[in-house]
């Protein structure tokens, strides 16, 4: 395991996680299905987690990995409440197409 730093530059991890983050943004922008948008947000959170772990490992600072642990807690909370809201919306509107949720727009 110790030759990881020698063989993989930190830049590779930065490029990989920014690519995944941009794919997540693409998913949020392209899709109209609210559940797929939620999954894209999870993807973005995970890309940031990967970057935090990479920086934490490459600078030998355990704070980054504890932050990732807390981000995972936040993500779990967000998903639980968000999916409950989605089920509620589906019960009232009978669709999770976000184009139909325009009551706040005027």
């Amino acid at each position, binding site marked *: 395991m110790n030759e990881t730093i020698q063989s993989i530059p930190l*830049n590779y991890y930065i490029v*990989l996680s920014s*690519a995944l983050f941009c794919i997540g943004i693409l998913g949020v922008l392209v899709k109209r299905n609210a559940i797929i948008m939620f999954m894209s947000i999870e993807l973005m959170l995970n890309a940031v987690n990967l970057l935090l*772990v990479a920086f934490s*490992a490459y600078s030998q600072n355990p*704070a980054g990995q504890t932050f990732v642990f807390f981000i995972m807690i936040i993500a779990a909370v967000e998903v*639980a409440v968000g*999916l409950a809201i989605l089920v509620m919306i589906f019960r009232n509107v009978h669709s999770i*197409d976000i184009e139909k949720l325009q009551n706040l727009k005027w």
Partner: protein
Amino acid sequence: MILTTFYILSAIAIVCALMVVLSKNPVHSVLYLVTCFFAFSGHYILMNAQFLAVVNIIVYAGAIMVLFLFVVMMLNLNKQNQLDKSNVARLASVIGAGALLLIIVASVKSAELDILGVTQLGELGTVQAIGKELFSTYLLPFEISSVLLFSAIVGAILLGKKEI
């Protein structure tokens, strides 16, 4: 050897992430996302962060994605799979995301990041090391997060009720 593993895991992660966005069926999207999270766990193991690798599989691939799958199947969304925006909006989204990626990569290219002063990975990501850190330095946030989880449970139950 390690570099090859890195490339394979990265290819799996990026292809699965693209398939999450591109596939028409929401169930397929969820399954691709689970595969993507397993690739992430592989990356964590590569960086000697065993604790986070295991937690990632248990929490993300285990709990969160099962919740997603449960909701997708409960709402029965397979029939309304033609939920895509117009071609102009799609093209604009692709251009926007691609431009953001270009900007990030270009700015990283000019940064000098290899001078962090560390030459090898230590025993940083083991359960013991993370546990010591969590229960000494970050004890208060750790306890507060339990309150957060409790409020999430209450909120989800409240939202799930038929009548408020």
